[in-house]
């Protein structure tokens, strides 16, 4: 496989429950994240959608007491197998966070960060890869003359696009986005959404969002999650093509949620 072309890969979640200590936060999940498609996970606060997303690249391993039952796989690789190299997994499953989190270094170094962790490329190659990532995240035009400036000088929307550039610079197979627009103004939000639509050409994209319009606009598949009142565990209510979910929901809870009656 040519390392320079991302190979959008399927992620599969099978019979999975997620625990914080003794508390089951998410239960009985069966999902399939398709390559070259944007899957949006929607649902009310506390239904476990972020926990679900953060278990896909094992970033939630950092949380004390976090535990997974079931099988999550990337292609045919078991994400939680004892033999899995977590660092390598995270290189293949990139993530963009809720709040922009640029590192306190230059714009260039932020994007180059992931590229220089192992076998740093030659300077000229590195510059090209950084430019490619910045173009792909629709930021190049705004920053090409100030690549040496601190990333923290950028606006919030630019910072978030920088974080997207940082995440895709290493050409992951899957891109996870955890409410990537929740800290952004409407114009920046629109730009990031256009970007997401663009990114699905190359990646498997999974996005958690609170914003119904965003899910409707930007995704191909929608997963509706909700908390089970009985045991307070989040679970999947309905999965379907986004158009169907929003125009013809099968489950009353989905209908209530997408029409804004609760959540």
């Amino acid at each position, binding site marked *: 496989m040519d390392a320079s072309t991302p190979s959008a890969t399927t992620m599969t979640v099978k019979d999975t429950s997620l625990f914080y200590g003794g508390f089951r936060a998410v239960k009985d999940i069966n999902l399939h994240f398709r390559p070259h498609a944007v899957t949006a996970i929607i649902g009310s606060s506390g239904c476990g959608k972020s926990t679900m997303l953060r278990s896909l690249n094992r*970033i939630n391993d950092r949380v004390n007491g976090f535990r997974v039952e079931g099988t999550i796989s990337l292609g045919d690789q078991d994400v939680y197998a004892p033999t899995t190299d977590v660092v390598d997994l995270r290189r293949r499953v990139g993530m963009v*966070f809720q709040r922009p989190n640029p*590192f*306190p*270094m230059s714009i260039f170094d932020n994007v180059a960060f*992931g590229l220089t*962790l*192992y076998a740093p490329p030659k300077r000229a190659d590195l510059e090209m890869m950084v430019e490619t990532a910045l173009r792909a995240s629709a930021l190049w035009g705004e920053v090409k003359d100030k690549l040496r400036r601190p990333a923290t000088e950028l606006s919030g929307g630019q910072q978030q696009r920088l974080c997207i550039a*940082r995440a895709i610079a290493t050409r992951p197979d899957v891109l996870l986005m955890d409410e990537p627009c929740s800290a952004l103004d409407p114009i920046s939000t629109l730009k990031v959404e256009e970007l997401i639509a663009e990114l699905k050409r190359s990646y498997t994209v999974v996005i958690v969002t609170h914003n119904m319009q965003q899910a409707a606009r930007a995704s191909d598949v929608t997963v509706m999650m909700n908390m089970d009142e009985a045991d307070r565990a989040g679970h999947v209510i309905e999965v379907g093509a986004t158009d169907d979910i929003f125009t013809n929901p099968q489950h009353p809870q989905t209908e209530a949620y997408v029409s804004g009656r609760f959540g």
Partner: protein
Amino acid sequence: MRLRQGIVAQSIFFTAAAIVALSTAALLLFTGSRGLAVFGYMNPAEFFLSGSWNQNDENFGVLPLLAGSLLTVGLALLISGPLALGVSIFMVEIAPEPVRRVMRTVVELFAALPSVIYGLLGLTLVVPWVRESFGGGLGKGILAASIVLVFMTQPTIVSIAEDALRALPESLREGALAVGATRWQMIWRVLLPAARPGLITAVVLGTGRAVGETIAVQMVIGNITSRMPKSLLTGATTMPAAIVTQLPEATSPEHRAALIMVAFLLLVITFSLIAAVRAAGSRGKARPTTRRRPSPAAQTAAVKGGD
């Protein structure tokens, strides 16, 4: 009514601030004027350039004291800085919570130990060790003093460096890990640069503690003022050690003035360190991602408490 309370409160705070400012000014004025009187007895060139401080010849050259301070503090910080940094990284990024809590307690305990206890431990443990390991002499000298200072500066540097690292937002750590950084790459390439202003502050305040330390150093350094330090193993002195050793016996006005001049220099050095901390602090403020560092007021308090 509320307005009057406001005025009363304001005048109380104003008075308090004025007292602090005035006493600082008075301190500088007193040591400055009394110290500078030494130049009535000898010319400044002699004071600053002579390599001997000998009260019997009434010859007061500050260089042996300055050199002693510089070498002792420099050597101590060379060991203490990296060590403390390692300890704080371990505490924040690696140690599980119960271990961290125990270490925190130990650090606080170390900070609370009176100087004279450090001196005593230095005298009974470090000095004999230096004497036996490196041979020759009494074992008292710059090396012994530096080793004692390594232990004395640990709590200052560790606690401030730990705060600086802990204050870094979790999002930086997650951001680094999410692009495939190992824990060490995250620490070296993201966390340490992000915490740099706080880490510089920690080391500078540790330096302040070391520069001002008196009793513990005086007990293990040998207190030789009459010549430049010849090696790390032979007797030497530092500025504060010389003051505390000689001031009680200084009978001539010239000797007293010379010692007070040394105190004045010490004050100038300490104030410069505070200024350096402030500069490092304000540089840090320009970066929105390095939040919640210790306030400049807390840093200043730590310098003053540290001698």
